[in-house]
């Protein structure tokens, strides 16, 4: 019980670390995922192939392996070094973007055919159709899966803690190495994650309600 009060600063730092990492990689993953989904429905075969390869590769690779890759293999290719936080950000957003891409793509499939046809008959280009007609509607349908994806991202960010990035799990590790009772640590850290995940699902429910349209 006292662990929380005595080490409040550490817990706060860890909590903020987790929130910050989650928010930053969510935004990046969303952008990347939407671009990739755009690739996957584009009329240009190499881009479609690139999108498909990206999704297949990153959805079937364990996240821990990706962490190892950016820690040990990527520096062999690019000279400029990243700090651990940026590395974690890149790994988490690349990994999550493949899930976002799949969600958005299935969302695109739910947009009624007539919408795109109407847009085309008005003379819109591919980008105009996608950007102004199809994607805004697709985003609405994929909000529930997106919320699950970002909740998963929050939980995955714990792996970054094992790779010496300051966040909640990292602090749990440090404190439990110092011999604090694991049960209390576990509970407090779990509570921290619960707060974040409930916030995410609440936010998404609000978004869903405000974006709801009659079809």
């Amino acid at each position, binding site marked *: 019980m006292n662990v929380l009060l005595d080490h409040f600063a550490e817990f706060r730092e860890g909590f903020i670390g987790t929130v910050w990492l989650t928010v930053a990689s969510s935004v990046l993953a969303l952008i990347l995922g939407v671009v990739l989904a755009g690739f996957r*429905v*584009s*009329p*240009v*075969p*190499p*881009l*479609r*192939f690139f999108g498909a390869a990206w999704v*297949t*590769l990153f*959805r*079937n*690779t*364990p*996240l*821990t*392996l990706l962490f*190892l*890759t950016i820690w*040990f*293999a990527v520096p*062999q*290719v*690019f000279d400029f070094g990243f700090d651990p936080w940026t590395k974690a950000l890149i790994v988490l957003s690349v*990994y999550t973007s493949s*899930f976002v891409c799949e969600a958005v793509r299935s969302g*695109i499939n739910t947009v009624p*055919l007539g919408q795109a*046809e109407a847009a*085309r008959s008005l003379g819109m280009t*591919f980008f105009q159709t996608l950007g102004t007609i*199809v994607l805004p509607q697709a985003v609405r349908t994929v909000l*529930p*899966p997106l919320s*699950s*994806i970002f*909740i*998963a*991202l*929050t*939980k995955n960010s*714990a*792996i970054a*803690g*094992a790779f010496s990035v300051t966040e909640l*799990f990292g602090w749990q*590790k440090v404190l*439990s190495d110092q011999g604090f009772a*694991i*049960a209390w*640590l*576990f509970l407090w850290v*779990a509570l921290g*994650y619960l707060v974040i*995940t409930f916030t995410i*699902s609440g936010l*998404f*429910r609000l978004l*869903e309600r405000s974006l709801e349209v009659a079809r």
Partner: protein
Amino acid sequence: MSSSVLYDAPGPKARMRNRIYSVIGTVAIIGLITFVIMRLADRGHFASEVWNTFNYANVRIAIRDGIFTTLKVFALAGALSLVLGALLAVARASDHRAIRWLATGFIELFRAIPLLITIYALWVLFLTYKSDLGFVGENNGFWALVIGLAVYNGAVQAEVLRAGFNAVPRGQVEAAYALGLRKSQVMTMLLLPQAVRSMLPTIISQLVVTLKDTSLGYIITYAELLYAARQLANTTLVNGQYIYVPVIMVVGTIYVAMCMALSGLATWVEKRGRRAKTGIAVAAAAEPAEAPGALDPSDPKGPTAEAEQAAAKADEPPGKSG
């Protein structure tokens, strides 16, 4: 295909433009790949001496043992998670409020906590209270990993099965009760088999997640494939550098192959289920999301609604739904 919706069949001008984009895209992608390969080759990661290490028996044995350990953890954790998932799903549908609440609480708690933290906490717990718990030998890591994976994935599988229960038409349950079947009979003869059948693709997708998550054993220094690979790379010095790059390439390929084989099974099962004309709905496979995926119980539009739609679609000719 959605792609054809978004653009017209290209005319001569658009075809030309697409061809130009294709060339640029191909060049860009090949350029990127070439750049990566060149850089790696520059650093000597493709030297024959480096790759020769894979010819040594002990290296091969290390990788083989890693694969076996990973598969062992996966088999046990997967089986346990299925059993636990079924139990939790049944408990959640119980008529007794206390049981229902306990099951719901268990599911919600362990789905919300990062799996890594569950595993780590179990590991520390086992290490700390080793003698009290009657553990002998060095299998703390194994059990922490297996139990952690089973608990987390069991909670997720329970939610999947719940969606499956909801997809069974209400009338069937009423009919079963009207015929005089007991509650347990309705569950075992009617609900569970149909739920498992309709949710099989999703269940397998979640097993893929379980397989991927065995790699968390790396963090609690349990010697599964990833940890074995790291040890291997860390201790083998060839041409003055550790062989991280080749080892990551090999191990990554192994992981991707294993996961794709399992995903392939899910797709096959889904296709097979769609072909069957039993009238049992096959819910669309959810994303094998790292976590609940599309299976958030808190959202009413989740798999339940999806499964219901699929159930509604079931009496349509199979070709139409999709």
